[in-house]
């Protein structure tokens, strides 16, 4: 039944059929979404009424394509900005975390490590509400004691960034740590011996060694942030991110514009995924 063994026809065929069905199950919703983005109909459903790209380019009020739909475009822009800052922050702090847990010794390291991985075990919704509440508590405290009204403590752009960062940083830390584990520390000593200062050693040797892991986890961090819903749900202010915005539209009835957006997302993320894969393959 494994490829090195003679196998019985029946089980082999059954397994193959199962895997084919599985892949249909996997791709059916995505394919249907993409196809219906081009249906010349007011609703994302069959029957097929002909091919159109108006859900992308249309500018009439009843056929407002995504390229003219300011609300959705705004939310995409918000999501990109959020993802950018989350990626930046997570890479910075996550890389520090990797150095901290792989190369430094300090009392309480073990406990601190468990704290670092705990965001993986805390549901995203709870991260969202706890950060919302804590920031409100801080906001009230600042207001009462110093009469300060700090915008950061109210739901909004930066709170979404912080909320997503709180668990994406764990992912970056783990990925970068895994690579740092494979680093031969005598390379650092060699660099120092050749005249590099501690800072130059980290910059030219260690970080360069970590580069593939940093780029890879950065791409994943960007996507995770771009698609995050659970944590952001509680932290958004007036600027909705794309998933939140789409959610509101899907919940209250939908038009093929959503299919158009989905189509762009599917194509975009697939390209990013393949690119990422291509580069990680090339590295090996």
């Amino acid at each position: 039944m494994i490829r090195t063994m003679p196998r019985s026809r029946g089980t082999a065929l059954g397994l193959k059929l199962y895997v084919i069905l599985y892949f249909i199950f996997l791709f059916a919703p995505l394919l249907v979404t993409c196809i219906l983005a081009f249906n010349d109909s007011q609703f994302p459903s069959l029957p097929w009424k002909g091919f159109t790209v108006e859900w992308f380019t249309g500018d009439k009020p009843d056929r407002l394509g995504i390229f003219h739909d300011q609300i959705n475009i705004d939310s995409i822009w918000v999501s990109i900005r959020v993802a950018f800052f989350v990626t930046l922050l997570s890479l910075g702090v996550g890389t520090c975390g990797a150095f901290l847990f792989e190369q430094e010794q300090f009392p309480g390291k073990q406990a601190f490590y468990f704290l670092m991985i705990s965001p993986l075990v805390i549901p995203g919704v709870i991260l969202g509400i706890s950060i919302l509440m804590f920031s409100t508590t801080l906001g009230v405290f600042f207001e009462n004691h110093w009469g300060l009204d700090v915008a950061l403590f109210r739901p909004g752009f930066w709170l979404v960034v912080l909320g997503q960062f709180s668990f994406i940083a764990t992912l970056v830390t783990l990925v970068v740590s895994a690579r740092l584990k494979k680093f031969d520390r005598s390379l650092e000593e060699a660099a120092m011996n050749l005249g590099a200062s501690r800072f130059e050693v980290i910059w030219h040797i260690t970080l360069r060694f970590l580069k593939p892991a940093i780029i890879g986890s950065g791409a994943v961090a960007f996507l995770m942030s771009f698609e995050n819903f659970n944590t952001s749900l509680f932290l958004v202010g007036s600027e909705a991110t794309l998933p939140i915005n789409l959610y509101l539209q899907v919940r209250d009835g939908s038009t093929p514009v959503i299919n158009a957006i989905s189509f762009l997302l599917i194509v975009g993320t697939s390209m990013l995924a393949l690119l990422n894969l291509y580069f990680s393959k090339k590295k090996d």
Partner: protein
Amino acid sequence: MDKNGMHDRLRWGLLLFLTPVFLWLVLLIVLPQIDLLIMSFRVESGYGDSSWSLYNYRQFFEEPIYWLTFVRTAVYSVLVTFLTFVVALPVAFYITKVVHPRFQGFLTVLLLLPFWVSELVRVYGWMILLRESGVINHFLLRMGLLQQPVEMLYQDATMIMGLVYTSMLFMVVPLISALESLDNSLIEAAYDLGANMGSILYKIIIPHATPGIVSGSIVVFMLTLGNYLTPNLMGGKNSLWFTEQIYNQFIASFNWNQGSAFGFLLLFLSSVIVWLGLKLTRQNLRKVVQ
């Protein structure tokens, strides 16, 4: 670097690395969780001031709708985890052990591709497939298999399927890496010694893949328990998920104390089940994470 030799430098480095990590964990994880816990033990008295009380937790146990949702969520999450495993195992097995190595990489990529796409898009895809005016109904009516369109969305079974679909990735990937490390000759030897498919599965494959199964299950369970989108968009009006209760308390009723209690209960539940899972299979979290 020699520890004695580079003492000052090391301390300096430690501080540089520790500070951001410390700020992150304390400000965004520890203190908010403590705040959550404190809030759940307080009630507003109506005039803006609040006092300590177990009221929020009493409320949870006294209102059947709350604890029933809680139990439903827990039971369904376990069910989803199990189903995900059952669905994913043959696929992982096929890809690692059966298919020609030439297609292995391609199939793996194909397998992961849908999960790079936002969960919302995937759920939306299911919605336009399954709803009353959806694609599947359209075809069934066309073929004459149905006289009347049926609503396939907004049912528990659909919701469970959606949850399985959503979390599939996190089961398939650890399973594939676990099975990849399983030496083919073990299966051959077992076969040679007279074992059949079933006993090979139970005696060889599953024991070997246990670490992968456990880590996959934990992640799937966690994500299912904390999922909001899929139950909300695919589940029926009376098949509430516990995260929706939390949302209602926070956003609709604006009762943050009650919401905190719910949040804390959910956190407690997930920690207990993860801990139980680890204990039962004698794994530890550190290993599972890696």
